[in-house]
């Protein structure tokens, strides 16, 4: 904290001296075609080339928040950065509106019995070595992913069959409505597995860029893929520096050493907003959710209700300086499955609920019952701004007469979530992994799930989750998800605080760096331009 405070002071000085003015610059988010229900197709992807077919050239310099020791997209989460580097592409991609859009695939269609998906590949897709992507290679990729990545080992249970050169089927034991969402994960990137010699340092992929130099957990340099199948590639290449320190990133941006970065902090946002002619700031509510669990095993219904009536998400978001958007439910309000409601902040109603349950104010101004003071244990970990959330919550609860104390842990999964020793547990995770609500709801609300640690128990919720698991109609899925989340909100089992914004900063007219996408893993594309 001391380190951060010192740096903030130094940067504030930098900002005050170097920059003037304070106008924001937040262009509208782009649009994507809705993928529809269970059949998606795209016949226009190959038309997304520059009209004159020319290339503007140049090198983009960008900061990356992570750097992995391998580029193999099938391992771990490495594909998240391969995709950001513009090297890899999956069969489908996530649109800015959370829809699934075909990329390497032409279409994905589910059979009438819901058990077989037929995937048709585009005719003209080639790898950077000029080889064409066929169904056999696509199946090999899916098999390899299932074999080497534990998170996707469930694909082992699916039967995959090549129908013809460009068509293959995936048959599942049960109805699996989210197949196309899965295929849109970056990990489902296609590699030329037969002709890649070094999967870790130089996988042969289909993206607009290919690897030029790779330093494990360091700088990554990519160059234009001359064989790119989807038209013209604007830039000659890009360099990604692994930069963890926010202050160093902002100084490198001011100095012109980098032209693009994502995940700007509140102090950086303030700094860049002061010079809109030089920096373009794009803020999109994204997929990473700050939330808290209210322990039903230790807290009365009325106390949980009071906490949710007191905690003011707007106030927390204002403290976080534009890095989050206040949440109502776990998903973006823009998505079809983000349509839920919660009671407005109402401290009087909160205190009335407590008093109705027999709590009275003691001489210290805090509520107590049967002579025992109500003292909530707020557990958090100092990451993803949860420390700020915890402090603001403590202050808000204190103002309303609820005493609380803070417990900080380094690893929530191995401490308070594992033991259940908390009253309020703060946590942050990606709620919307690929345009579908089931993953998050199943992880947090399903009985026996990993995050089922606060005593939430609802037969109705279990029933709806079972329905959601097998429902193939997207509008019905959204309806079910909204009902499920509403149950959790009404039960005061959770409090959804805010969704992290994906804040992209681009310098000197750079565009097309995934700035309108809510997903962290989209960055460099064929359309990325230096704007000069």
């Amino acid at each position: 904290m001391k380190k951060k405070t010192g740096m903030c002071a130094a940067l504030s000085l930098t900002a005050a001296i170097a920059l003037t003015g304070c106008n924001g610059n937040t262009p509208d988010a782009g649009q994507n075609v809705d993928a529809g229900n269970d059949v998606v197709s795209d016949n226009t992807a190959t038309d997304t080339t520059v009209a004159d077919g020319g290339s503007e050239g140049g090198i983009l310099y960008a900061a990356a928040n992570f750097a992995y020791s391998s580029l193999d997209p099938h391992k771990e989460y490495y594909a998240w950065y391969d995709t950001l580097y513009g090297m890899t592409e999956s069969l489908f991609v996530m649109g800015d509106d959370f829809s699934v859009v075909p990329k390497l695939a032409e279409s994905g269609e589910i059979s009438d019995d819901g058990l077989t998906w037929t995937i048709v590949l585009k005719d003209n897709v080639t790898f950077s070595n000029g080889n064409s992507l066929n169904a056999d290679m696509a199946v090999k990729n899916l098999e390899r992913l299932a074999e080497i990545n534990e998170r996707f080992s469930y694909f082992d249970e699916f039967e995959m069959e090549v129908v013809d050169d460009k068509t293959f089927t995936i048959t599942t034991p049960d109805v699996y409505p989210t197949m196309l969402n899965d295929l849109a994960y970056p990990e489902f990137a296609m590699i030329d597995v037969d002709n890649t010699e070094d999967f870790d340092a130089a996988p042969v992929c289909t993206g607009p860029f290919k690897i030029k130099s790779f330093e494990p957990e360091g700088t990554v340099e990519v160059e234009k893929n001359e064989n790119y199948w989807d038209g013209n590639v604007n830039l000659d290449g890009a360099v990604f520096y692994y930069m963890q320190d926010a202050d160093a990133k902002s100084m490198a941006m001011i100095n012109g050493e980098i032209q693009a970065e994502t995940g700007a902090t509140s102090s950086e946002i303030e700094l860049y907003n002061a010079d809109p002619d030089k920096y373009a700031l794009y803020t999109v509510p994204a997929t990473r959710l700050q939330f808290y669990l209210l322990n039903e095993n230790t807290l009365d219904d009325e106390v949980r209700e009071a906490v949710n009536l007191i905690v003011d998400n707007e106030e927390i978001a204002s403290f976080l300086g534009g890095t989050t958007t206040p949440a109502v439910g776990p998903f973006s309000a823009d998505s079809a499955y983000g349509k839920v409601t919660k009671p407005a902040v109402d401290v009087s109603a909160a205190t009335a609920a407590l008093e109705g349950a027999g709590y009275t104010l003691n001489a210290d101004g805090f509520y107590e019952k049967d002579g025992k003071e109500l003292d909530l244990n707020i557990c958090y970990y100092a990451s993803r701004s949860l420390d700020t959330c915890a402090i603001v919550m403590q202050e808000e609860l204190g103002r309303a007469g609820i005493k609380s104390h803070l417990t900080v842990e380094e690893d929530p999964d191995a401490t308070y979530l594992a033991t259940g020793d908390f009253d309020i547990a703060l946590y942050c995770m990606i709620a919307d992994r690929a345009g579908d609500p089931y993953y998050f709801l199943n992880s947090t609300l399903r009985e026996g799930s990993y995050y089922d640690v606060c005593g939430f128990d609802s037969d109705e919720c279990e029933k709806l989750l079972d329905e959601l698991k097998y429902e193939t109609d997207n509008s019905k899925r959204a309806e079910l998800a909204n009902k499920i989340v509403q149950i959790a909100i009404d039960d005061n089992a959770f409090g959804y605080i805010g969704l992290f914004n994906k804040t992209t900063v681009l310098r000197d007219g750079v565009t097309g760096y995934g700035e309108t996408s809510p997903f962290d893993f989209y960055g460099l594309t064929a359309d990325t331009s230096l704007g000069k």
Partner: protein
Amino acid sequence: MKTGKLIFKRILQIIPLYIGITFLTFLLVYITPGDAAEKKLSSQGVALSQEILDATREKMGLNRPFIVQYGDWFFSVFRGDLGYSLKDGRPVTDKMIAPFGRTVILASLTMAVSLVLSFAAAFFSVLHRSGFFDRVMRVISFIFNSLPGFVISVLLMYFLCIKVNAFPVISNGSAKGMVLPVLSLALPLSGRFFRQFRSEMLEEISKPYVAEMKMRGLKDITIMTGSILRGAAAPVITIVGLAFGTLLGGSVVIETIFSYPGIGKLAMDAISDRDYAVVQGFVLICATVYSLVNLCTDIAYSVLDPRVKTDERDY
């Protein structure tokens, strides 16, 4: 011969040292909440599932008893194999060689700059003690000694990168890019060295033999360069040796700020990831470096001050 005996004795001493520190480090990583499987699966904030977590733990061998895991690691080290990183499966040796080399370069340059700056400043301060230069240097050294490296680095970045535009913010291993990381580490260290060197020289200058030399008509500069520096150097060597060891493991903040991929940053990431194989490798390297530095310090001590017998000192 005596030096040879000392080296042999040190090698024998280092074996129980290795066993002790690696056991303790392994134990500390083991009992710290969380493990490598959980850290790996949750690294991007995606929800965990118990089934996948259990399978990953099984695959990594983390379900085995502590002593079996430590024993496996220990005996593989005896075969010259530091094992594989739990985070990414790369051989620990491969993973550490390049960052270690970079940190040695950073630490060596830092040490060289610090020694030159502090020795020169201390020499002239003592030569003109209580004069203007001495007073100014004492204030400057106090400031450098008080400021943490990261504050100095941010200030240097602001003035030298943003204002003067003389150096890049991103180090990236280039000669020009090394200047700021080296200065960020060297300035606080120089402050500490200056005060130490000055105090040792002043102590030496107050000894009777200096007064005798003055009475014999020798000039101050001759006494300083001929006798005082040699007399004051011996105690300083221990501090310099320890500082070098600290630089190897303790420059993580500067490495992070300047995006300099050194061993300190690698070790910090490994601790966060509960990657015990890499942590153990780092501890072994640090223990070896500290032992070597101590050995060199003792040898240098005996060379500079012949009254000290290397085989009679209680190390």
